[in-house]
């Protein structure tokens, strides 16, 4: 009984901390504007849509990984899957959740585009270093 109560409380807290943590990662990158080049490549002009996420992630996987952002990209990928799950289940019965999940999915796509921007400049720096060497 006691273990059951602890488990339910811990799982609920885990979900809440996970969502807040992912949103803090997204919020930290939302202030960064995208370069014209990344806007062209991703098709994101001002506001990203949730449907852009998979495409941006595919582009992201084509670039060499930066060790600093590997974990945050994975965390946001997991958050995106959680949002998709909520969208296809709970949001069908709660209309306000539909808007919330869609807006969050868009933020995830923007985060991925910012990560893409960083990876592109990281690749350029690496190439420049190799050319110098």
């Amino acid at each position, binding site marked *: 009984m006691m273990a*059951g109560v602890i488990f339910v409380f811990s799982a609920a807290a885990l979900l809440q*901390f996970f969502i807040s*943590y992912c949103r*803090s990662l997204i919020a930290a990158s939302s202030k960064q504007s995208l370069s014209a080049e990344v806007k062209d490549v991703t098709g994101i002009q001002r506001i990203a849509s949730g449907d852009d996420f998979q495409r941006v992630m595919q582009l992201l996987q084509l670039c060499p990984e930066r060790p600093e952002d590997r974990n945050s990209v994975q965390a946001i990928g997991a958050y995106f899957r959680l949002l998709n799950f909520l969208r296809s289940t709970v949001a069908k019965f709660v209309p306000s959740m539909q808007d919330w999940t869609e807006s969050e999915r868009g933020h995830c796509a923007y985060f991925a585009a910012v990560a893409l921007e960083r990876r592109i400049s990281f690749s350029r720096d690496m190439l420049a270093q190799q050319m110098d060497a």
Partner: protein
Amino acid sequence: MPGPFQYCVWFLCTLLEVSVVVCSLAKGSFRRYLSLNVYMLAACFVNLARFKILFTYGFKSSEYGYFYYYSDLLLTIGLYCALMGLYSYVFEEMGAEQYVRLGALLLLLGTAGFSFAIVQQSSSRMGHFVLDSRVMGHLVLEASQNLYFVGLVLTYVLWGAMLKLRETRTRLIQLVLALGLYFSVFAASYALRNLSTGLSDLWPYLIPVSGCLLPMAWAYAFWRIPEEARIAPSRLAVVPR
């Protein structure tokens, strides 16, 4: 006996713990977040000591078993102190540090007393209660589990207070949220283990991987988030404010 996977995760975890301290030193935040850094250093030394004892005495030796559980309890108390450091940091402008310390000490003693009462009750049910090594081992395990749960509740309260006080320091927010994630994963894992014994195969993988979460997130926060970065806390609440 740990397999290659466990050794790899063990090594990675130790490396991540060192990287937290290195990132914090490199960014000039070591003294500001002293309790967190001291905890990470302690965790790193404990990992190295466990490794040494494992190779000297073997995995099934009582020396390794005792050292593992006693050091785990001490580390949990250390993490609890690190959490109190974060409390002091959040409430420093209100001058409530001494109340926080007193409250933390009382809660720590209360948790130890509660764990002792549970162990005493279960031992008495089996016959007689003698404070031998088996009962002490049970007590250490019970206290660790309860401290994880108390830590989770305290982190949850701290996060609620930060939202209420409209805390804007991004790095502090990420440090607290990562700690909340870590405590909730461990508290849920221990509770699940008590609920179901069918997860014993998963246990040797789940706990070491979960152990990497905290140093990974803290290293990221120290390295990537500048101290002066600010965030609107209302954007982070799960329920929009």
